[in-house]
């Protein structure tokens, strides 16, 4: 408890708990994880909300993200500058969204962001191709990728603009049986 006081004030912790799906302990653990990433950069005392950001390269190296084919996109889509530099707030946010408790809708929003490589608010074919190639480590032949992308867009595209808007995506993802269980990082 004493340790906690030095990192966050009670108010801060309460706020974090309200804003995330984490418990107080988990938030403290998140902080320690965050601190571990760059001990010299991240202060232990967060009571005065220091402005400190960690670059993408450091965060992506976490074991939780290391194997994820979309790790860069995850970090980027949670960073406010879009470059992947995460402050602690954003760091907590990221794992909150990816936590078990986050509702499907919230996850869907961020999933959409993650898969939207070119940040145009649409999942176009290039996005899909990138997603697929990352997913399969480019094991599929270009023809297969092409086919899958076409089929996927065909399936989910409701308005016929041959790209997936968020509405399309949401419609599709909310019907997916295992989206909730897979879009989830335990930390």
């Amino acid at each position, binding site marked *: 408890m004493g340790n906690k006081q030095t990192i966050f004030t009670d108010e801060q912790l309460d706020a974090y708990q309200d*804003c995330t799906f984490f418990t107080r302990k988990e938030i403290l653990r998140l902080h320690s994880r965050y601190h571990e990433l760059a001990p010299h950069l991240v202060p232990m005392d967060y009571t005065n909300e220091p402005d400190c950001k960690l670059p993408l390269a450091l965060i992506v190296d976490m074991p939780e993200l290391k194997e994820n084919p979309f790790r860069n996109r995850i970090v980027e889509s949670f960073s406010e500058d879009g470059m992947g530099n995460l402050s602690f707030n954003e760091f907590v*946010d990221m794992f909150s969204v990816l936590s078990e408790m986050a509702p499907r*809708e919230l996850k869907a929003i961020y999933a959409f962001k993650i898969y939207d490589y070119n940040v145009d608010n649409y999942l176009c074919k290039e996005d899909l191709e990138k997603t697929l190639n990352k997913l399969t480590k480019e094991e599929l032949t270009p023809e297969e990728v092409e086919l899958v992308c076409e089929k996927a867009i065909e399936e989910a595209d409701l308005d016929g603009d041959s790209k997936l808007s968020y509405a399309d995506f949401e419609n599709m*993802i909310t*019907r997916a049986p295992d*989206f909730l269980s897979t879009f989830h990082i335990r930390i």
Partner: protein
Amino acid sequence: MSSASELVVGSSRSLLAAKRHRTVRKNSRRIYSAYRDHQQGSSDEEGGDDKEVDSNDPEEMFQNIQYQKEIIANIRSRPWPMRRKLKVLKQAREIVLKYEGQLTRTRGYQTAGADLLKKLYRVLYNIVVTFIPWEVRIKKIESHFGSGVASYFIFLRWLFGINIVLTIMTGSFVVLPELLAGAPFGTTRSKTIPKEHLASAQDLDTIWSLGGYLQYSVLFYGYYGSVRKIGSAGYRLPLAYFLVGMAVFAYSFIILLRKMAKNSRLSLVSASDENFTFCWRVFCAWDYLIGNPEAAECKGAAIVNNIREAIVEEQEKKKDTSLAVLISLRILANILVLLSLAGSIYIIYFVVDRSQKLEQEKPELTLWEKNEVSVVVSLITMIAPSAFELVAQLEMYHPRTSLRFQLARVLVLYLGNLYSLIIALLDKVNSMSSTPHESSSNWTNTSSTISSLSAQVPRISVSEHRNSTMATISTAINFVHNRSSLVIAYNQTIPFEKNARSQQDQCWETYVGQEMLKLSIIDMIFTVASILLIDFIRGLVVRYLSDCCCWDLESKFPEYGEFKIAENVLHLIYNQGMIWMGAFFSPCLPAFNVLKLIGLMYLRSWAVLTCNVPHQQVFRASRSNNFYLAMLLFMLFLCMLPTIFAIVRYRPSEHCGPFSGQEKIYDIISDTVASDFPLWFSKVMSYVTSPVVVLPAVLLLFMLIYYLQAIARSLKFTNNQLRIQLQTERTEDKKKVFQMAAARLQTPEASADKNPDQQESDIPSHEASIHTSSSQQNGSVTNVQSPINHSDSIRTITQSASGADLNEGHVSESVRRPAVIVLPKHQVEPLPNRPRHFIGGQSGSCRSKSCHHMAYNPPSGLSNAIHTDPLYRKTIRSLHPVEAAGIIAAQNYGGRRGPTTRYVIVNEHRPRRKLLCSATRIPRHYLMEEPTEILELYPRNIKHYTPRTNPQHPPRSHTSQQLRKEEEETGKDRKRTSLGKSLRPCSLPDHHQQAHFYIGERLDSFRESQRARNEIQKDDEEEAGKEGVDWGDFNLPSPSQASIKEKVCFHTQRHPVHSPRRQHQSPTRSRHMGSQLKPKLRGQLETHLTESDSASIASSSDQQNSSTDQYIQVIHSKERHLGSDVRQEKVSKKKTKANFDINYTESNDLICSNV
């Protein structure tokens, strides 16, 4: 950083947004809208929510607090960046605290409690999960080989569970009591190894053939004592034995059926969501939990597999080859399979027969000869499936179908094997159980000491049967010979020896149990051997010798072994079938099977992970799980049959087993009922089992089955209905999205004027779409009905019209329409036409009717396109004149009324027509909504109407070219109608279509000569005013002229048509689209394509009930435009007559769809 300022700036907006949020209760909605807000202007909104509270009035204070609380509760699920969330939260908290300091604390307790509960659940769940065996192993396999291979292991695990239960049942109720309370080994005859066998009882040879000590153990039926009650508690072992034997089957049935029901429920749930296979495989494939490189690799491989699977499935849909070749190949394949099945059955028979002969002839059997039967059976079960697979390649079925076929064939094979084996066994049982029947009667009398007298009789009988008995006993033969020599040694009398031998060996239940257990053991050995040899050694060879071989071992010939799910699953089923078959005779068989399954689990999973490659075409086995289960059920039933048959048919062995001395095994029940239950119970039982009760019960059962089946059928029906409804619902969803998209598209493209209109139109269209599923049906119904109404109304109106002054009738009509100006004009014109007037009146009334109709059925198709109605007007208007013309043709009136269908046709278009005709109506519509914009939006309409209503004045006032054109067009239409009249006065549809066609050709009219135009204008006036009322008379003299003109026009002006107009010409289906296009086109000819596309899509979708069509339209709308153009051109090239015909057919189509 700059958020503070942003916050202030955005406060007001966010307030609005917040309110909007509040109205939307649903969480998801809120999130979605939040997301939009976020996208559009997240920075503006930041923190705005809090400010609002301060600025609010005291009355709203409470609401605000509630709202703030809601924010606090839901803030974690908002897609905002944390910084913003924190800020919003802080402010919301402050506000809440300010007014309701207490509340947060109690809420804190609540949430703490909830959290605790949740955690408890999670912990419990984790504990439960850890007790599921091999979960990790299966997960690993799953991630490596996909769900198909894993399904095998899951199935195995499930069977393992069943066998554990069976083991517990038999163990606790039969084996344990016998061991604890039963007579110990060696005390009774059935529990003693005969002396002559004692020497060899521990030989490996004997043990291997399950003789010796094993034979006289709890493993087999013969060991169990027949004492009614054992132990101090009086445990009824024989009864328990029988009941447990039955319970094994009962339990298996119940558990199987339950599992199947559950599976089918699951598959039903997932079946409806099949639509997004690829999307899900792309977007939901990755398991974000994976943090281990190996697992990640596995998952990657699994995903690739999965996607490939989907691709293959997709490609399979498209594949097709020549039918004849395929059929002949399949026939050939089936013949081959049948041959091999027959061959395998013959081999088994042959082997059993040979073993019998061998037993007869040879004193000593070799190991091979003793195990011949089981080895051959196991070999067949191993080899035949591969042969079937080869054969299946001939057939070129869809992989999934071929899998099914393969499974079915292998199942038949296994069943054939088991059955031929069991029949051979039962053959022997038959002889065995009949032999002691005669001898045993003596035996019981003489007890264990045998008098030579009594022995004589049995000797004869035994000797008679000796051949058959001896022949069949493969295992016992050893004994026999050993013993016989011994017995002869010290008991000289052959008869006694024979009797003693037969008495002890004739325990056919034990024999069957032995055979089954032996089969099971040998099957296990073969499985292990095949795994080691075929998979492991092959894997090793391929792996390590591929370098020093001239071809690529890994990809060419031997390759790595594939894990064949189907065969392996079937093998499990087969194995389980053996267990069920033998469980009654060998109570420890389930326990043995448990061990076997555990071993198999480890060995298989090891083999799969080390030396197998994933099957190239892995299919989701979870779906076919029920297929496996169905086969298992089938197997259970078929395996139960021989057991039941043996129980019912044969007399239990006389000197061994719990039922010794009874006539039939099931007598134990009646005996127990008779002796151990009170008298009344046995009486009741006798009543219950008498035909008086049984027959009605059977009848009742049949009735019940029939009733349930009927219910199931009706449920299926409703199910289908619901599914259809769901589909339409989904299409509605799509429609909505289209509309949204359309609105979005239009807003940027359309001029400022159009925007409001669009929005307005969206609103009704939304409503319409919401109700469409029902409304469509309703609409169709009303359509059907409306014709009748129509006719009635027409009649009445006509009467009134005829009776009263025509002018009055018109007046009334015109009164309805705001534009009263028309009246004088009409008055002028109708006068000459009086005699015909009533016809005109009819048409007018029809029109009015149609108005009503419209009002009734907005959803029937027009509602969505309300804003576009002006477009329709033209087409409809043209129709109208046609109708009028038809009426003028006069005789038609009666005829027309008769066939309702025609009316339907009319009605369909009438709404539109009505819109067109009654200028007031549409304008009114729009006036109410956006009065100022009517002119701009529907310049055409207004012009139209103006000319119509005030034929002379308005044209002058608006003498723009467009106006003239319009007039011309209208005139054209009219002419057309007249032409149509002249051509085919009677057939309404034709007219209607003609009109349509002409509308399309309006362009031509454009270029008509001036004088023609004048006439047209006149026509227009008339049309506008009464639309047809005066028309017939007025125009009647001129139709021929008009038609001539028109034709000329056609020829001359076909070419210059531009696309928008052409679309009008395009057949009825696209009419709506075209019509919608028109107004916009007026304003902006070229730019509207996209807009019109979307809009037209919406409208067209409404028009056409079938969702698929709609979808197609959506996708190809642009193409269709092109297509329509082309079509139009064609049409224009043809002569008018031909056109009529074409249109006619099309109109028919339309009717069909709508009605």
